C-alpha cells in the first residue's frame, strides 16, 4: 500500500498534485504557515525575536502603573490559595480582588483567610451564581487601579508576567493586552499533549503576527490586562460565553489598540479528556458565531462609525477561516469521498496529510526560533505528525458547533451562563 502510494505520487502530474494541494497552499498554508514564515524571516534579519527570547530585567525606566488583579471563580477552593500565593508580591503596586460566584466549597473562606494575613486583598462573594461576566463586573466599582489584570482562578503566572503585560499600556491608545497561555499538564494524556503544541503554535507564535498587524481579536481570559478607563467606557463584560472575545471587539470598536506580550506567560490546565475538550471548543465556536458574526458583524461594514482597516481585516479573516473555509473543507472531503474510489481517496488523503505534516514541521521550527526555552519545546516534537489529524478533528467540531449555533442558537441553552440570566439576555 505504501509503495503504491509512493508510486502514485511520483507518477502524478505536477498540475494534478498542485490542484490537490491548492486549498492548503492558498488558504491554510498562507494564513497559518506562510505568514509565520515571513514573520520569522523578517525577525531573523532584524533579530527582533531577542525581545521574546530574552526579556529584559526590570529597570528604573519601566512603566509601573497601579495594577488590580481580578480572579473570578466558581468552586475553586482547591486552587485559589495556590493561585493567590503565586501572584501576591510579584508586582510592587498591586491590589487583588477575588470574586466567589456562588461557590459552595469554601472558596470564599479560604480567600478571606488569605486576605486577613495579606494586605491589599479584597474578597467579594455572591451566594447565588450569576455568571462570570457579572462576577467580573461586580469587582469593577471597587477597583482603584489604572490597569486590571484578569486571570483564571486555576492559572499560575510566571514570576514577572504582570510586569511584562503592563508595559504596552505606556501607550495611552492601548486598551487591552493579551498574555501567553501555555498548558500546565501537557503529559497527562494524548489530548493534553496535542493541546500543548497547539497552544504554543497558535497562541505563543500566532498572536505575535496578529498583534503586529493590528488584527488581534481576543485577549485570553486566562491572562489578560485591560485599562480600567477603557473597561468603564465600554461597560465591562457582557453576558457570555465568549465574553473575553466580545470585550476585545468592543474595545477595538471604541478605538483602542490590542497588544500581545509573549513574555507574559501563564500556565493553565487544559482538558484532559476528549469529551471535555470537544465541549470546550464547541463553546468557543458558539461564541465566535454569536459575537463575530452577529453582534459585531458591523466590523466589516466600511460605512460604520468605528470602521478601521484592522477591524475589517480581522472580521474578514475570522469569517473566511473560521466559517467559510470550515464548511468548504468539510464539503470538499465529502465530495472527495463520494467521487473518488476508496484506494484513490486513501492516497489523496494521505498526500494532503503529508503536506499538512510538512506545514506543522515548519511551524515547529518557527516555534523553536521564538521560544525562550527551545529545549523544552523539543519535548513536543512527537506531536507534529499527529497535529493534522488533531486539526481535522477540530475542524469537524467547529463545523458541528457553528452549524448548531447558526441554526439553533445552541449557546443560549448552555449552562455556562445561569438559566435566569441567559433567558433574559439579548439573543444576537
Amino acid at each position: 500500500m505504501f509503495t503504491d502510494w509512493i508510486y502514485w505520487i511520483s507518477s502524478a502530474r505536477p498540475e494534478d498534485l498542485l490542484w490537490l494541494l491548492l486549498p492548503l497552499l492558498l488558504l491554510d498554508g498562507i494564513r497559518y504557515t506562510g505568514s509565520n514564515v515571513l514573520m520569522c524571516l523578517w525577525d531573523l534579519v532584524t533579530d527582533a525575536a531577542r525581545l521574546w527570547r530574552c526579556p529584559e530585567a526590570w529597570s528604573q525606566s519601566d512603566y509601573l502603573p497601579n495594577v488590580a488583579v481580578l480572579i473570578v471563580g466558581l468552586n475553586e477552593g482547591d486552587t485559589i490559595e495556590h493561585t493567590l500565593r503565586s501572584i501576591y508580591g510579584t508586582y510592587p503596586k498591586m491590589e487583588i480582588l477575588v470574586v466567589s460566584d456562588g461557590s459552595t466549597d469554601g472558596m470564599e473562606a479560604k480567600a478571606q483567610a488569605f486576605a486577613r494575613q495579606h494586605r491589599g486583598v479584597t474578597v467579594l462573594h455572591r451566594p447565588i451564581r450569576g455568571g462570570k461576566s457579572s462576577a467580573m463586573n461586580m469587582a469593577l466599582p471597587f477597583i482603584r487601579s489604572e490597569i486590571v489584570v484578569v486571570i483564571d482562578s486555576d492559572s499560575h503566572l510566571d514570576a514577572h508576567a504582570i510586569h511584562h503585560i503592563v508595559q504596552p499600556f505606556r501607550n495611552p491608545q492601548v486598551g487591552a493586552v493579551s498574555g501567553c497561555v501555555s498548558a500546565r499538564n501537557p503529559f497527562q494524556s494524548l489530548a493534553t499533549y496535542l493541546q500543548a503544541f497547539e497552544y504554543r503554535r497558535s497562541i505563543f507564535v500566532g498572536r505575535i503576527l496578529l498583534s503586529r498587524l493590528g488584527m488581534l481579536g481576543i485577549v485570553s481570559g486566562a491572562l489578560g490586562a485591560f485599562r480600567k478607563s477603557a473597561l468603564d467606557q465600554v461597560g465591562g463584560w457582557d453576558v457570555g460565553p465568549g465574553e473575553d472575545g466580545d470585550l476585545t471587539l468592543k474595545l477595538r470598536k471604541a478605538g483602542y489598540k490590542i497588544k500581545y506580550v509573549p513574555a507574559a506567560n501563564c500556565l493553565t490546565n487544559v482538558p484532559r479528556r476528549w469529551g471535555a475538550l470537544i465541549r470546550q471548543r464547541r463553546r468557543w465556536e458558539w461564541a465566535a458565531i454569536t459575537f463575530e458574526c452577529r453582534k459585531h458583524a458591523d466590523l466589516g461594514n466600511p460605512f460604520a462609525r468605528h470602521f478601521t482597516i484592522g477591524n475589517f481585516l480581522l472580521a474578514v479573516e475570522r469569517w473566511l477561516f473560521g466559517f467559510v473555509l470550515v464548511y468548504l473543507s468539510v464539503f470538499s472531503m465529502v465530495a472527495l469521498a463520494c467521487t473518488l474510489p476508496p484506494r484513490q481517496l486513501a492516497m489523496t488523503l494521505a498526500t494532503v496529510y503529508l503536506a499538512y505534516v510538512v506545514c506543522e514541521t515548519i511551524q515547529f521550527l518557527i516555534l523553536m526560533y521564538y521560544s525562550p526555552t527551545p529545549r523544552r519545546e523539543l519535548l513536543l516534537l512527537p506531536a507534529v505528525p499527529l497535529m493534522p489529524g488533531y486539526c481535522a478533528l477540530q475542524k469537524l467540531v467547529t463545523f458541528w458547533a457553528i452549524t448548531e449555533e447558526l441554526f439553533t442558537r445552541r449557546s443560549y441553552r448552555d449552562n455556562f451562563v445561569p438559566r435566569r440570566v441567559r433567558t433574559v439576555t439579548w439573543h444576537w
Partner: protein
Amino acid sequence: MSPSSQSTPFFSFVEQDQALLPAPLNTMHDRADVANRRQSQRYEVSVPVHCIGILPSLELDHTRQWSGLMTDISSGGAGLRLADAGDLQVGDLLLLRTEDGRSPGFHALRVCNLHRRDSQAIVNATLNTPLSPMFAQTMIFPSLDRMDMTYLMPFSEMTLKSLESEGVITSVFLDRVLVCPACHGLPTVRHGCGACLSSRTEQRRMIHHFACAHVDFAEKFETADGLQCPKCRGRKLIVGADFEYTLGPKRCLDCGRTELEAEIGHCMNCEQRFDMSTAYDLEMFGYHVHRLDILDLIREA
C-alpha cells in the same frame, strides 16, 4: 497578643476574706465555734487517718505529716490521736485523709486543743477552716466576677494544684471561652474592620442586571422614573426577573479599607479592642472534691 508574662493565671486569685483566715484563739469567733462543737452530738469512731500540714497559703506542707486515729466525730469537728506529733501546734491547719480501705475522703481541720500523752497527741480540731467552702460541696466551679467580668476560682491556682496532686480534688474540663488576651476579661463581639478595629462599616447594596451583566451600586440605577440600567439603559426593571440585589464587600467608614472583615472583641474589663482571632483561649475547669462524708462516719458510728 500573648497573655501576661507571669505564669499563665488560669484565673485571678481572689484576696482572701479575713474571716476565712485562721483566727487567733479566744476570739469571739473561736469561742462560738467551741460552743458549737460542744453542742454538737459527738460520735465515737475509730478510723485510721493520715494528716498533712497546710501552710498559711493553703498549700500542702509535705514535710509535716502524721498518722493516727480519728476517735470521735461531730458535725462541727473531730477528735484525733496522732503519733509523733511533736511539732503540731494549736491553730495549725491539717488535711485529713481517711485510710480505712474505702475511697479516700479528705477534709480540712484546724487544731483547737492539743494534749500530749506519751508519744501521742490528743487533738480536738474544728472543721471550720479557710478550706471549708471547698469541702462544703462535691464540686467547685469558677464564678464570674461581675465587676471585673473575669472568671474566678475561690482558691488560688497553687492551692488547687497542691490539692490536686494529693488527690483531694480532681479537675473536670468545663468549657473553653475566648477572652481578652491582655487581662482575660470577657469581651463583647461584633463584626468590624480588621485593620483599625472599628465597627463602623457599611455594606452597600448592589444590583446585577441580567441582560447586560452590569453590576453597580443600587443608587446608580435609581432615576425619577424608576430603575434604569446605566449601561444598557434598560428600564422598567423587575426584581427577580430582570435583576437581583446583591451585597458588596463591607467597607470601613473610618479607614476606608474593604479587604479586612473581622470579628472585633471589646474587653469589658480593660476596655481594650482586639481581633477575635488573637483572643486568648481560656480553658475552664471545675473540680470534683473527694471530701470525707461526715454523715457516713456518724451513721456507721
